[in-house]
């Protein structure tokens, strides 16, 4: 039986009070409560404070490059579609450097669970604006404050037909643990965008700010209602909804791909070359 202690990892090098601690606590609790062992899934992470996440728990880990979590995660699924795969990225990592991969992972509907630590700023590189930074925020890399409007990833995801779209807040650990479980249980590409206050560099979107602006979506919301979900996802100002916003039952890429569908994972099959003579014959 798995215990909570099995998920203890290295001592985090995050700033004291960082929103990431709430994410880590909620994740460990969720995996423990799901009864999953650390070697039974993979976390692919990128670069940034979020990229260090897998080292602070226990799991199969591919901590790759900035922006490149989703291609690695996609291919792990194609190699082994019995292996659950999480991708942990930051807002700059996923929506900035990796934007193209994000769009195409949603298009494929590969069964990868994407978690974005969305602190609306670049933390590890010390205070530059990220795609989700709000206008007026003071930053270190612009001659002015932020001039552009914040990218709101949720309506982008819903318009792409992303099969699971949710938003959490690192200050609401109980809700977040439940969201991790719902994300885990979803079949298809899932986006869990988590507001995660950066206590050092983001003086605008603080714990207090998120508490004032975020509200839980009422239980009566039906995530399969596309129109209502899209409307909810566009709420990104005075009030911001958290919870499961959208869900659909699209077939996954793994189910559509003939070489995988209804078969054991490729990595569990014989790895030796096969059926060569038939192909060689084509050259005569």
């Amino acid at each position, binding site marked *: 039986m798995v215990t909570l202690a099995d998920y203890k990892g290295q001592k985090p090098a995050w700033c004291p009070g960082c929103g990431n601690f709430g994410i880590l606590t909620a994740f460990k609790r969720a995996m423990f409560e799901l009864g999953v062992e650390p070697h039974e899934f993979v976390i692919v992470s990128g670069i940034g404070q979020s990229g260090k996440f897998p*080292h602070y728990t226990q799991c*199969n880990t591919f901590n790759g490059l900035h922006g490149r979590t989703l291609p*690695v995660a996609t291919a792990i699924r194609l*190699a082994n579609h019995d292996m659950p795969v999480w991708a942990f990225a930051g807002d700059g990592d996923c929506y900035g450097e990796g934007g193209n991969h994000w769009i195409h992972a949603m298009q494929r509907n590969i069964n990868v669970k994407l978690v974005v630590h969305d602190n609306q700023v670049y933390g590890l590189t010390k205070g530059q604006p990220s795609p989700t930074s709000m206008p007026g925020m003071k930053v270190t890399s612009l001659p002015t404050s932020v001039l552009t409007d914040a990218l709101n990833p949720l309506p982008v995801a819903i318009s792409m037909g992303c099969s699971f779209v949710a938003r959490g807040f690192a200050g609401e650990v109980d809700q977040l643990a439940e969201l991790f479980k719902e994300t885990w249980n979803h079949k298809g590409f899932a986006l869990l965008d988590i507001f995660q206050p950066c206590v050092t560099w983001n003086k605008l979107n603080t714990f207090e700010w998120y508490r004032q602006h975020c509200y839980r979506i009422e239980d009566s919301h039906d995530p399969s209602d596309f129109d209502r979900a899209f409307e909810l996802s566009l709420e990104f100002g005075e009030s911001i909804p958290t919870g499961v916003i959208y869900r659909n039952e699209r077939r996954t890429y793994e189910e559509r791909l003939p070489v995988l569908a209804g078969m054991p994972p490729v990595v569990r099959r014989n*790895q030796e070359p096969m059926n060569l003579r038939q192909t060689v014959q084509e050259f005569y």
Partner: protein
Amino acid sequence: MDYTIKIGGAAGQGLQTIGTSLSKVFTRFGYHLFAYQDYESRVRGGHNFYQIRFSDRQVWCPRVPVDILIALDKETVPLHRGELAEDGLILYDSADIKEHYEGDNVIDVPFNQIALTEGGNKIMSNIAASGAVLGMLGMDAKLLEAVAEHAFAGKKDLIEPNKKVARAGHEFGSKNCPRCAFQPAPETGSKMSIEGNAAIALAAIASGCKFYAAYPMTPSTGILTFLAMHGERHGIVVEQAEDETSAINMVLGASYAGMRSMTGTSGGGFALMVEGLSLAGMTETPMVAVLGQRPGPATGLPTRTEQADLLFGLFAGHGEVPRIMFAPGTPEQAFKLVNKAFDLTEKYQVPAIILTDQHYADSEWSLDSIDLDEFKFHDYRVRGDAFKSLSEYKRHALTNDGVSPMAVPGDGPFTVVTDSDEHDEEGHLIEDAETRRKMVEKRYVKKLPNIQREIEPPLQYGSDKPEVLLVGWGSNYGVMREAVDSMSGDREIAMLHFSEIYPFPEEGRRGFLDVMNSTKTTICIENNVSGRFAQLLRMETGYKFERSIKKYDGRPFNLEELLEEIDGHLS
């Protein structure tokens, strides 16, 4: 017997249909063959050609004299008339290209009319042309009919009309060629023929490659399309990535998950893959990348050939990343080297690059057969029960030879952890100096000498004690070899062909340097302007070439021009 047929026309006119049908006929008849294509970066129009050389002895490269020139457009004759052999013929359809040529070596063949009358559709005019060529050569039409049957298998209603058109074209060719003096050699056992890219794809399949991800880019797209068509049969996942950055990261993901994985691209796409190559080095994840060169910089000449990316491929990747680089010059070399690249990348967990170019990728060679037993497959991964039975596991464990056991995540009770940051034996990120030093030595210093021990020296062909030595690499194998054959009656000449480019073989296997130092005239032959290989050789061995032949117009060497260039160095 050594004949060359050149088919000139616009893109979309069916040069490929004529070219591939004739190639199939010749190889099934038992002839040796070398065919190559020259095309523009467009789907319709422009001027392209397809050139087939066939003989009763092995042929390796393009030659200039054209024996039969088939003109499907107005540009072919003015552009290529000067290449005609003394008894060479021009075939064209005056009604089709609305042009009339004079001369007793010009034959007006109504390709379209034959196709319409016999087959009921102009579209079969290409089969009429192929038939006419065989008629002029005095070869039987039956093989062409068999080829048509094979090509239209599954479309039964097309087989008979195509066979009729082939026969009618053949009859026209045999009756209307007063000057024909072709003397085809007798039929021997059927051969196979294979293009450069297909040889790489086939070798990947035969090496146990189970994952291929790529973004289309000439001249490597052929590998992607071949594997897309054949992947399912061989249990291979083939994925077109959204960009090359994604492609190489996918390859690393699939490899981490436990499968042999490969990607392919050209210089521009490889530029996007560079960060991924560095990641492969840091995470010690096996992978093979095909870098099919075309002329740069930037978009360059997208459909043409060059050998300018040797040092780019070799030095690509930030940090100190060990790597293996092979450059095959023939399909046989590709079989061996792609197989060896897969074996070494799995054995040493360093990335391997297969360096080709457009001339290699799009050329076609005849082969007697493929010996599938020559392909080696040894699984170095820790899988299933072997992983379950371990008492502990560290992905980057420090070992005497620098190679750590690579386990398949999920197969055993331990986690498999790797990181693009510097990491400890378990794969977790670190900052301390001592671990960093040990890991650098593990990845680079400990592995490199063992890899060097696996590397074969260059191939020496020709005289044992040459007074002239041609040195080259990759796709110039064929033209250098024929130059040696052609000149060896008059003088002591040899070639050194490098296909296992990097690392260089260990000290005890560098006898090639003695040959180079003791030869009076040594010439380095490359398709680039700055002498990329000459620079590498000097860097690795201190040897400095005094003479070189460089071609950088985007076209491959042909035999006659290379002979002339060599002659210039000897007079």
